[in-house]
């Protein structure tokens, strides 16, 4: 962010950005659910030049013991960038940036997962960035939400994440690599589309109050669009399951009784 722009570089030209997008346009996004065999749930996402794979395991035993919470499940998100995912090779293993991102993503997801249903356990979310092009934490969180649903983890709702920013004095949506490198502001957010609550928000740069409002609106609207893409991924994965025959073949389903007093309870 805020790097020195090469001589003559214009991030805007005739109302269009370097890659041809309008200010409020998203990069192309594709999501597939259920792509890994061993994991309880998984998702693969491509977003602009980002390629991200997410696996969910859980709920399962939380090790080490002292990490366990006696009344709820802990949500452990591990965000990691593959060495080959960036231009200058990154040494394997978590660095401080990855650890910080892991923490805020865990916190975002812990808000929607019904953790009180699984005391003493852990829900592990592994986010691997296979290839990076700006906005990996938003892309990772968006994919993680799909993977958690794929794993059958009960949640209040999905989480949809995207970043807004400011380049050449103009508020824009979903920064690309150059915009991230040479722009003035980066504002990644995540909302729960069902409630419009923000579960992730970070910012660095410079925004007036009016610009901030504009950016938040732009990002929230885009998050709803992204929610549609997330839902589509899950429907595509399970669409064959949606066909049934209402007849004698109708089997008795065994499900779970709602807890006493389901008003706001689960």
């Amino acid at each position, binding site marked *: 962010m805020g790097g020195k722009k090469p001589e003559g570089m214009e991030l805007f030209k005739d109302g269009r950005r370097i890659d041809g997008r309008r200010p409020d346009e998203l990069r192309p996004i594709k999501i597939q659910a259920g792509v890994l065999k061993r994991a309880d749930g998984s998702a693969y996402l491509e977003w602009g030049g980002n390629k991200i794979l997410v696996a969910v395991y859980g*709920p399962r035993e939380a090790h080490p013991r002292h990490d366990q919470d006696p009344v709820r499940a802990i949500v452990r998100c591990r965000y990691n960038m593959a060495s080959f995912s960036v231009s200058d090779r990154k040494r394997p293993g978590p660095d401080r940036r990855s650890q910080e991102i892991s923490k805020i993503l865990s916190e975002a997801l812990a808000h929607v997962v019904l953790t009180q249903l699984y005391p003493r356990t852990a829900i592990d979310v592994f986010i691997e960035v296979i290839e990076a092009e700006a906005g990996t934490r938003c892309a990772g969180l968006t994919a993680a939400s799909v993977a958690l649903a794929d794993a059958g983890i009960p949640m209040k709702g999905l989480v949809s994440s995207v970043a807004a920013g400011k380049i050449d004095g103009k508020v824009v949506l979903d920064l690309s690599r150059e915009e991230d490198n040479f722009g003035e502001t980066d504002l990644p957010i995540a909302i729960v589309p069902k409630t419009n609550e923000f579960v992730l928000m970070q910012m660095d740069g410079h925004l007036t109050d009016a610009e901030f409002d504009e950016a938040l609106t732009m990002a929230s609207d885009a998050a709803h669009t992204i929610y549609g893409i997330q839902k589509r991924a899950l429907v595509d994965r399970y669409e064959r399951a*949606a066909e049934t*025959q209402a007849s004698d073949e109708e089997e008795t389903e065994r499900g779970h009784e709602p807890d006493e007093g389901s008003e706001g309870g689960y």
Partner: protein
Amino acid sequence: MTHRGQQVRELVVPGELLDDTGRLKPGFNTYREGGSVFATRLGLKEVRGDRVSVIQLSGRYEPMRGDFVIGTVVENGPSNWYITVGAPQDVGMHVNDVPWRVEFGETSKYLAVGDTVLLRVVHVDELRKVQVSMKDRQCRKLEGGITLDISPSKVPRVIGRQGSMISMIKDMTNTRMLVGQNGVIWIDGAPQDIAVARRAIETIEAEAHTSGLTDRIRKLLEDARGRSYEEVRAERESERRQSGEDEGGDGGEPEGEEGFDDSDGDDDPEDDES
């Protein structure tokens, strides 16, 4: 929504609105907030009477009182064992909950790491702590045969209405089978018969929610056996009647083998459905 007798159930995602009229009660995998009902899990929306539920399509096994489950011993304690059943946590079983008298420190003489056991879930408390027991007559260590792991959400389909699907598979393949609610299935018999039973189950798992499945499975079994199900079933029935008349006859399948196919959630494991 119906179309020529086929009902397409709507796939819903967590947080999705299921009903905002206030007239439906929250069923499985849902929650109510401000008069509306929402889904908590990915699954198929289903309305039965005045209840709206979500039939879950994925997720680990969650123990419920009364379930019979098949698990593997992973650890021996001096007076207990830890057994994995595919649930969020391994279950502990105390020496008080088995039919043998086990001396302190001698648990491995009865059940060792790697042993497969049929257990009953006797209690799940508010903190989701699970108590299991082998005291039920049906419970025992399983030896020989093979085990398959399927998604717990597919178990009702493998059992079928009133146990019809699993009876068909057993009769046509001449195998003994036990189906745990946790998705673990034990099959024993001649290797080629086990292989056919396994194929049938794997097909059911892959196509659980599609129509015409029962017919396809019957065809798979008939092709493998070279005989029709009608024939085989009639034969079995007369065998059973015969051995019922004989004093001290072998009686066909060991007692209790039918017991676990009960899909109504009935607590009595000895309900013989045939």
